[in-house]
């Protein structure tokens, strides 16, 4: 189900969990606002992770915690410190890409 959401005067399409449906609608201001809703203030390290996730998503690489941990940007502990409680779930939402899912 698609829903509309307005951030800083810009309307974006999101699913029922608040994930962007169309990545072309993503920009940095939107990321900052979604991060705020998750209780996160974005630092340079956050942006590096976000960029890595977007790149991996573009190349159709399935995302796992381990993969990010081996990316050379952060280790798994640091990833948790940046995005507490379900880092991939939150980081993908802020990055404007789908959350990792299982088959059901």
């Amino acid at each position, binding site marked *: 189900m698609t829903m509309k959401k307005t951030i800083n005067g810009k309307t974006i399409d999101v699913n029922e969990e608040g994930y962007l449906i169309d990545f072309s609608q993503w920009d940095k201001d939107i990321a900052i606002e979604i991060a705020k809703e998750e209780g996160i203030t974005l630092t340079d390290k956050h942006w590096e992770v976000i960029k890595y996730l977007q790149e991996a998503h573009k190349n159709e690489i399935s995302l796992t915690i381990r993969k990010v941990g081996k990316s050379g940007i952060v280790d798994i502990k640091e990833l948790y410190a940046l995005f507490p409680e379900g880092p991939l779930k939150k980081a993908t939402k802020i990055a404007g890409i789908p959350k990792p899912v*299982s088959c059901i």
Partner: protein
Amino acid sequence: MKQLIILGAGSGGTMMANHLVKKLDLSKWQISIVDQEETHYYQPGFLFIPFGIYKEKDVIKPINKYIPKQVQLIRKKIERIDKETDTIYLEEGVLKYDILIIATGSHIAPEEIEGMLGEEWRKSIFDFYSFDGAVSLAKKLENFKSGKLVVHICEMPVKCPVAPLEFAFLADDFFTKKGVRENVEITYVTPMSGAFTKPKATEKLEYLLEQKKVNVIPNFNIEKIEGDVKKMVSYEGKEVEYDLLVTVPTNMGDKCIERSGFGDELNYVPTDKHTLQSKVKENIFVIGDATDVPASKAGAVAHFESELLTKNIVRFVEGKELEPSFDGHSNCFIETGKGKALLIDFNYEVEPVEGTFPIPGLGPMHLLKENRINHVGKKAFKWVYWNMLLKGKKIPFVSAQMNKKGKRI
């Protein structure tokens, strides 16, 4: 003679051998398959062994029984593949190939989690993704009458991602029948956002968790196990205590992929998700769990892939362009206990939805709905696997690409 070599005689490799003997000109092509194992395991049956529903004999057959006579079976360990020279180094000897199909699967790697392989491995910590694990868990469950049972997934991707959930449902049934259900607490611990992650499946199936009194702890990414005090610890420092831990360890591709130097961090082979040609070299193809494609790791997927990969191998031999035909099609029965099961059918694009299967509008089976006929289907599948799937026979009405008809999309 030109050489086509298949690495691995599990589901994917065996199906490819059976398809290709019918499609390649055997006066020009020698087909060989390499596997050091003696036994072919029916892996979907591992789920039933801990509960005594299947016995060991139900899931094992000699590996050579399903390899066609025209195919040379080489029972040697694979050291590595040298893609530059089209050579496979075996423990003893070398093989040269013109076309290579990698079907080396994925396996549990309990050594990846600190503390898993300690004193308590197969005393209070078990897996059911290996034959030995499933058999030893059956003995443990016989005498388990009370305490905390934790069913757990370490990290994705894993083979058959619904099997741990099926395990929790079957455990509910098992302990109820034994009359000790109220003394056993069942908890499902997952690194994902919930037991169900897709919207329609969540909506239709969430009730099962409540009905079967399965507690769920989501977003739990395990860092280590403290076996002496029976406790799992996550990267955030959260803890889960258990009396009996049934975990799905990290799943990884074969070590020969790592030794060949072209796997990803979990030893899966980079593969085009529609043509199944590897991204390593054009004469290397990949099928089943060995790929890194974002489809489920399951025998049904390997089955659909095998039909389409066979066509692409023939096209490759004829010098034609490959067809990007694989759509990520997967389907499976999900056992929910008490003689019922669910059925799901989906692909890269379409999530599991309600509908009828395999004949649109008629069924006789229903998608995303719990009933008895699906359970009968799940049990009959063992016969289908040994007698049709492995031999490369088509299953009536079930196409390799997903059919959108009869589905509420």
